[in-house]
């Protein structure tokens, strides 16, 4: 079975740790304990008769112009850029963020995920997505276990391309 290193990056507090916890342990907590340092979890993903072992890097969230250390991307096969649909500042400069990640990681594509969809109505969500000028791949809710599995399958598919 292939092992693939994947990263979750994005602004602090957007729910990277929560998405991973939901995916790996099927747990969720309302508490916010900001991640410091890199915590790695593993999970096997199955899709279309394939199995991929994901080595998932949960990277500390960034603020402002902070960059994810380049060294983290060593050997990475794909990356998920997470933003919070309820917080403008986490998607305001999404285009630049995607660009930076591509440069640092040398990855061709980045999976873009808007989390915390449970906090918005369908209408509000639509407006937010309209405002963003990059293609949002999926909107998820770690809290309500909505699209979480799908997001990681997407990430896994991207990693074996």
């Amino acid at each position, binding site marked *: 079975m292939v092992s693939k290193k994947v990263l979750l990056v994005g602004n602090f507090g957007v729910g990277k740790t929560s998405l991973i916890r939901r995916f790996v342990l099927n747990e969720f907590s309302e508490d916010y304990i900001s991640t410091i340092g890199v915590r790695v979890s593993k999970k096997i993903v199955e899709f279309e008769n394939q199995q991929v072992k994901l080595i998932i890097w949960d990277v500390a969230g960034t603020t402002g112009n902070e960059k994810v250390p380049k060294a983290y991307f060593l*050997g990475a096969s794909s990356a998920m850029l997470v933003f919070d649909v309820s917080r403008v500042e986490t998607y305001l400069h999404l285009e630049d963020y995607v660009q930076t990640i591509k440069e640092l990681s040398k990855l061709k594509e980045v999976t873009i995920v808007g989390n915390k969809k449970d906090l918005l109505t369908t209408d509000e969500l639509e407006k937010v997505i309209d405002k963003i000028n990059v293609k949002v791949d999926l909107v998820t809710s770690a809290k309500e276990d909505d699209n979480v599995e799908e997001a990681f399958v997407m990430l896994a598919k991207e990693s074996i391309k």
Partner: protein
Amino acid sequence: MVPTKIEDLFIQLKTDFSGTILEIEAGKFVADQLVPKNSIYELCPFLEASLEDLPLHEVYHLNTMLIVVDTIEYNVDLELIRAIHDVSILIHDRSSVYKHVSQLNQNRNDLILLKRELDLKNTELENLKIIAEKANEEKSRFLAVMSHEIRNPLNSILGYSEMIATEAEELSIIRYANFLTRAGKNLRVIVDDILDLSRIEAGRLELIEESISIKEVIENCVNDFRFQLKGGDLAIQLIEENTLPKFIDGDAVRITQILSNLINNAIKFTQKGIISIGIAVISEDESISTIRFYVNDTGRGMTQDQIKTIFREYEQTQARDQHNKGGAGLGLSIVKRLTEAMKGLVTVESTVNVGTKFSVDIPFRRTHLDSVEYVKSEELVTIDLIGKEILLVDDDRLNLTIMDHVLSKEGCALTLVGDGQDALELLKTKRFDAVILDINMPRMTGEELMRKNDLFTEYNKETPFIALTGNTGKTDQDRYVVLGFFNVLSKPYTFVKLIDTLKKAIYKA
């Protein structure tokens, strides 16, 4: 306790490219987890899928990684160097440093999120405030319009009921008419209160400043109440200081309103006993006298908690009273607001079962009376209107009928027309002793007529014009004076007021 040795804080080892530990070279940090031939991925899962990609002969730093040993987490920094056949790995324990970093990081993030939440709440509050202000303005406007719409027909009702009461011969009809008048008057007080309060709230209350005899204003007001209470268990006593200034600049209507609201309130709470009303100068400088009006009752008093709420709108302490004498509960808040508008102060002292004392202190500028408009009430009594030619101009038929009725009894010779256009034609050809002119009329308004006054100078150059209007703001009144009106009679008016105003106008002219 054994002190930490340097070897305990690091470990240096070699692995192959698939993560198998080849040898431990130095250091003891988590040494029992890292045994040769085992995989380093057990302890350091983050190295999986990375080792082959390392650049050759370069130091590669991987900082702030987490490793877990028996549920204990360590923060470590790594240095990796790839050689031809193996990888050198140095692992530093940096937990003591990152413990603080972690705390700082958490604090920073929490702070940013809190600030964000605060900002959101503030905008929300700001929006709510704007909405509330809008709603309040809307309410004031609505009330003002409504009250205005109610006032005019109410005025007619009162006029007719007064007329019926004076003319009817059958006793029961007189009694019914009197009930009707009383109920109408109560309603008018409420409507006026609402209108006043909404005016004040909307910042549209304008105080008039004219020379008035404060003594006379107070006496008139108190006498009205004396008359009302005649024969009951309640008496009114007026205590006047003789150091009162003769004339001051003030708004007689509003001062009367303050005092009558206070007296009304006292009456509501006092079944039996004496209400003392006093007026005194409490301080004085070259031009200003601060005058205190007070109303003491021997009623049941109020608790401190009740005192706190009495100046609020629509608050009825007496609601719990079986002895509710009506009103919208606006009287005291009007007192407070009017007093404040006059730069004064209201205070209350009260003891349960002993009584209540309201004091209102207002600074007034002292004046000397030089206005010709001032005619003492006693003098007015001696003047009559017999044979005076009066032109009444109003599109409100009911109002015309009432004025006609009242003034005919005074012996006036009346001419009635329904708009400014008809009035203009008459004024061009006939002299009048006085003209009472409504403002809002079809075809030609009262204001438009006044602007054409050079068309009727031949017969009516000196004739006093009285503006009849519901708009009684000061700006309106000033405008009317500039337009050449002698005086303003605001609706609703009492018969006495109508007659007095007319007498003043004719006497002056």
